[in-house]
């Protein structure tokens, strides 16, 4: 391999230009969105006026983080096939959202998934419990994203970590605070198009060197690093570990508050369905692209050069862009990665702020009675507070190993949010007490078990052996959560809730409310 010197980490004129264009366009959108963001429905859900296709792109934009673009391409470039196994885990939760969650969510809720859980149960206890699950998911995910973005931006542009964090925080607060869901959605859509477009161009440029045939690329990788890069390696060594992580990813995807919230931005269940189909297709396409990008980097950049810049391989995609398309293309891809970071944290912050204002403030402290303008004001204060908190956490966790927090966020989403949501939709006898038991058990188990697992107990706290053997707690915490929900509902039933199940069921399946008079 020729000696290759990269310009990564130096200010890059093209990337600054592309970035200024992106920021200008999105701020312009935020300005127009602000005029159409006056009511709570507009702030939380863009008034339900997003089309199924647009929402599909925005969902993909919400889900395809910089960590999955740069991280998975890096993983593939260093480990080969194992990176694909990882991607598959992140995709397979999407069909389950479609089959189990999307339509009931759209038909039964208004702004948050807690609306569905609390549909026929007692408002206050459910809202408090569901908010804890939601906020913990959002916060852990947000910390991982902020810390990751600070390091990535430092690596890409040479900007100091603290400056990067404060800048990301400030722009993200601007989008959400002024433009609400409408601006956030369009930021996601633009980012998704840029990311998919940029990755596609990168793949075409790589494949053009291999006769447009990926097999030739893989063969070159095999010739350079041996057939082991085309075969599964050490990622799945313990089947229980793999099962547990797989469950966290599958059911966690169906419990992520910022993803679930997007189903309220479309007009009806039909559009909700279409958006999952579109999102799954784009995310699947994206993971196939990252697989080829990873192999491209392995062959064209070389593993030594990749690990020379960053041990984790996070710069593989950018190095590949530079090798294939020069400094200008590097600048473009780096700007896309930056845009990706902004879009994901904006979606998370909006979801967290909605939980704080709609679930906690309005439905718990004000007993469901708050004036429209008051709720919007509280939602904006919550956005600001959460944005500042995200920056503070990003600074506080500087240099810490926070990779486990993504796994933890998925584990909490899978154990606290998903079981309560599924049981409240499908089980007539699910009671308030059962729901609270389920959420509390799921959250507690997920957090407690990950602390004593190898992930934290050994890797971070440096103890010799872990108390709990699995790296991800989902296998136990999901089962525990369902069991607690079942036992809790049997111990303390809820007659009012049972009586309202029929009405909920009609609305769930037919999308109509039978509280209003029917026919003549």
């Amino acid at each position, binding site marked *: 391999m020729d000696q290759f010197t990269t310009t990564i980490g130096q200010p890059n004129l093209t990337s600054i230009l592309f970035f200024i264009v992106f920021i200008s366009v999105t701020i312009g959108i935020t300005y127009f969105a602000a005029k159409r963001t006056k009511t709570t429905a507009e702030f939380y859900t863009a008034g339900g006026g997003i089309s199924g296709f647009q929402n599909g792109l925005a969902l993909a934009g919400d889900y395809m983080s910089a960590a999955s673009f740069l991280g998975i391409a890096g993983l593939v470039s260093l480990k080969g096939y194992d990176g694909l196994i990882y991607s598959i885990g992140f*995709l397979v939760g*999407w069909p389950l959202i479609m089959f189990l969650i999307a339509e009931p969510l759209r038909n039964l809720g208004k702004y948050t998934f807690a609306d569905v859980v609390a549909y026929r149960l007692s408002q206050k206890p459910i809202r408090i419990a569901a908010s804890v699950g939601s906020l913990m998911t959002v916060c852990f995910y947000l910390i991982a994203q902020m810390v990751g973005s600070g390091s990535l931006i430092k690596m890409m542009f040479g900007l100091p970590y603290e400056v990067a964090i404060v800048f990301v925080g400030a722009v993200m607060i601007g989008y959400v605070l002024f433009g609400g869901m409408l601006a956030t959605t369009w930021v996601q859509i633009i980012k998704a198009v840029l990311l998919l477009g940029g990755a596609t161009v990168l793949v075409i440029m790589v494949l053009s060197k291999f006769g447009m045939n990926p097999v030739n690329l893989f063969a070159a990788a095999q010739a350079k690093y041996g057939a082991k890069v085309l075969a599964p390696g050490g990622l799945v060594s313990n089947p229980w570990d793999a099962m547990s992580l797989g469950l966290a990813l599958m059911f966690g995807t169906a419990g992520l508050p910022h993803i679930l919230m997007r189903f309220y931005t479309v007009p009806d269940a039909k559009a909700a369905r279409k958006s999952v189909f579109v999102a799954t297709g784009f995310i699947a396409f994206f993971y196939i692209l990252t697989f080829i990008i990873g192999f491209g980097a392995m062959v064209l950049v070389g593993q030594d050069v990749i690990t020379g810049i960053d041990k984790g391989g996070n710069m593989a995609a950018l190095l590949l862009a530079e090798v294939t398309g020069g400094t200008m293309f590097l600048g473009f891809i780096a700007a896309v990665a930056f845009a990706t970071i902004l879009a994901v944290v904006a979606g998370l912050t909006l979801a967290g702020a909605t939980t704080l204002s709609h679930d906690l403030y309005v439905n718990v402290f004000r007993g469901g009675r708050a004036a429209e303008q008051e709720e919007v004001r509280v939602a904006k204060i919550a956005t600001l507070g959460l944005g500042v908190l995200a920056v503070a956490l990003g600074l506080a966790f500087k240099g810490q190993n926070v990779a486990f927090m993504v796994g933890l966020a998925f584990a909490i989403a899978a154990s606290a949010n998903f079981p309560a949501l599924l049981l409240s939709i499908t089980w007539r006898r699910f009671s308030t007490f059962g729901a609270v038991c389920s959420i509390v058990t799921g959250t507690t188990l997920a957090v407690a078990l990950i602390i004593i697992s190898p992930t934290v107990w050994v890797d971070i706290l440096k103890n010799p052996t872990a108390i709990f053997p699995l790296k991800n707690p989902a296998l136990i915490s999901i089962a525990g959560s369902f069991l607690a929900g079942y036992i809790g509902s049997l111990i303390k039933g809820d007659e009012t809730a049972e009586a309202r199940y029929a009405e909920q069921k*009609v609305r769930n399946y*037919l999308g109509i409310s039978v509280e209003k008079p029917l026919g003549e």
Partner: protein
Amino acid sequence: MKRDAQTIIASPEFKALVARKGLVSAVLTVVMLGAYFGFILVLAFGKELLSNLITDGLSVGIPIGLAIILLAWALTGIYVYWANNAYDNAVNEIRKGLGRSE
């Protein structure tokens, strides 16, 4: 004609709708779970099966991995096709019967 929720959910048309949706969702979910966890089990216990080379540059694992990715997307497509046709028609029939056509 007024009908309450209890009457609606006790009606044969509604029951058939619920049963069919339950069946379709369950079958598709089981296919997805089966494919994914089957893949994980093969990785855990029969890694060699996936490591074998079909030709230079292509191990058995690569097309299988891609097939699972495409399967996930195809299953959502099947669901949308079914729901847009069979399911929505049945829903509209029931709504019409309730005087709530849309």
